[in-house]
């Protein structure tokens, strides 16, 4: 019984982690069909922001939850204005450009802070599930993931900005005829996606080694989850994270984390084979 409780908790944590690392990428891909290969490095920047701010004496919660999205969102806006906006509609070019940005960011951070692994200590302790100890910090991850998913849903569903986003995503030319500037909307979307990546980096900083190349550890899983989820940003990310997170954690528990990652990949390949457009490409198509 205790074991089942622990397992459920770990599965929930795994799903929440996937949601966090995927949503920023999903927003950018879903809205603009841009594959942001610098996504992992945006997360890395978020993690560094958390480490540096915490080192400078900033309250750990602010350093993890507030500063990373602000800093990385600003970096995203600058990159969109200087690089990405010239490449809309050219998928290969944007992939190359964002790959270049990713290498540049790794180089920059290595130069500034050295190729060493840093860390932040988790701000909360542990608790017991029966005979087992579990990290309270996992609860923070789960809560953050729920908050960003809900927030994203409310933003898209309830606000005028969300309405304009959805309309522009569908038909930018027609949105322009209603007085919307698609250019501005793309800029805001890219900034939002970058901010979400930054938040993910900040929140995950205490449980991962913070180094210049840490993004690589997340990027592939994030991509798989975006593709598996399909066009609906919130529902797709939520569902695909649930499926992959569940399989990954369960297999990791029975065997080893490496086999768990293998199982996740196999599940992703099967899913894409059966549903080439992702889950929401076939089901729940009208969801957000």
């Amino acid at each position, binding site marked *: 019984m205790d074991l089942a409780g622990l397992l459920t908790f770990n599965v929930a944590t795994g799903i929440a982690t996937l949601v966090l690392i995927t949503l920023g990428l999903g927003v950018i891909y879903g809205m603009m069909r841009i594959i942001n290969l610098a996504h992992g490095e945006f997360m890395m920047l978020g993690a560094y922001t958390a480490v540096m701010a915490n080192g400078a004496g900033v309250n750990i919660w602010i350093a993890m939850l507030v500063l990373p999205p602000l800093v990385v969102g600003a970096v995203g806006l600058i990159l969109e204005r200087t690089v990405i906006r010239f490449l809309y509609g050219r998928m290969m070019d944007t992939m190359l450009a964002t790959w270049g940005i990713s290498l540049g960011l790794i180089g920059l951070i290595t130069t500034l802070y050295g190729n060493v692994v840093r860390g932040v200590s988790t701000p909360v302790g542990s608790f017991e599930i029966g005979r087992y100890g579990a990290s309270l910090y996992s609860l923070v991850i789960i809560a953050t993931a729920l908050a960003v998913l809900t927030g994203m849903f409310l933003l898209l569903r309830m606000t*005028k900005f969300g*309405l*304009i986003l*959805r*309309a522009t995503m*569908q*038909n930018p*030319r*027609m*949105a*322009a*005829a*209603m*007085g*919307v*500037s*698609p250019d501005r909307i793309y800029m805001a979307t890219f900034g939002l996606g970058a901010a979400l990546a930054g938040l993910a980096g900040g929140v995950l900083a205490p449980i991962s080694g913070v180094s210049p190349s840490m993004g690589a550890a997340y990027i592939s899983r994030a991509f798989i989850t975006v593709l598996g989820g399909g066009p609906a940003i919130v529902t797709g990310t939520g569902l695909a994270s649930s499926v992959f997170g569940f399989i990954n954690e369960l297999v990791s528990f029975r065997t080893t984390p490496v086999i768990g990652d293998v199982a996740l990949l196999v599940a992703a390949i099967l899913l894409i084979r059966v549903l080439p457009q992702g889950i929401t490409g076939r089901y729940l*198509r*009208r969801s957000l």
Partner: protein
Amino acid sequence: MSPAMNAIEPLPLSSGPDAVPAAKPALLSVEGLHSGYGRIPILGGVSLTVGEGEFVGILGHNGMGKTTLLRTLMGYLPVTAGRIRLGGEDIARRSPTARARLGMGFVPQGREIFATLSVRENLRMGCLLSDRDEDETIADILTVFPRLKAYLDRPGGALSGGEQQLLALARCLCGNPRILLLDEPTEGIQPSIIEEIIETLQAIGRARGLTILLVEQNLTFIAGLSERVLILQKGVVTREIPPEIARDRAMIEEFVGME
């Protein structure tokens, strides 16, 4: 209609701020407009004017440049030469967004409503350009298009072609445009709705003093709405059908047949 116009002509009300004696000051004027796709020229010097409150129809067969003309006026295609003036302001280099904000309303060929957005959300998008209260504007437009009332929460893509056309019109009118550019609104639409569109446009035209530039190949529709009809051939306006003929479908047919 035109005797009535003549009757009010001398009143200072209709003469506008620059006090030009003309009955209908040009709202949209196009001079020597050239445009095309990439290096392929389609428009070879189109000139026309649309007066304030006027309904102008442009008749032409497929491939004569009708859609290209409207897309160039709206700013989706670059102007390679010539001028477009809206209310005196040169807008030939402005973006579609800027033109929409200056009062160009566009109902494109194929409607292009937002398919996964609900009918209400489509209308709300149309309201972005209006500074009036959103709910009021939508309530108003629904009195003009009562048929849409029943579908407010359905996705726009679930409506029939004709209903989508009504929605596209309603969406555009929510923004209270100064001029409405209409691209073949009858294409692929059942005749009963064509009648409804004609009646609706005539009614709001009278009520709001709407200005319309319409491109069409449906003679009934163009004759039912237009005060003047221009004929577009191979990218230029070749002739103008006088108003007394433009009102009568049979006479337009004869007129066009003379070519």
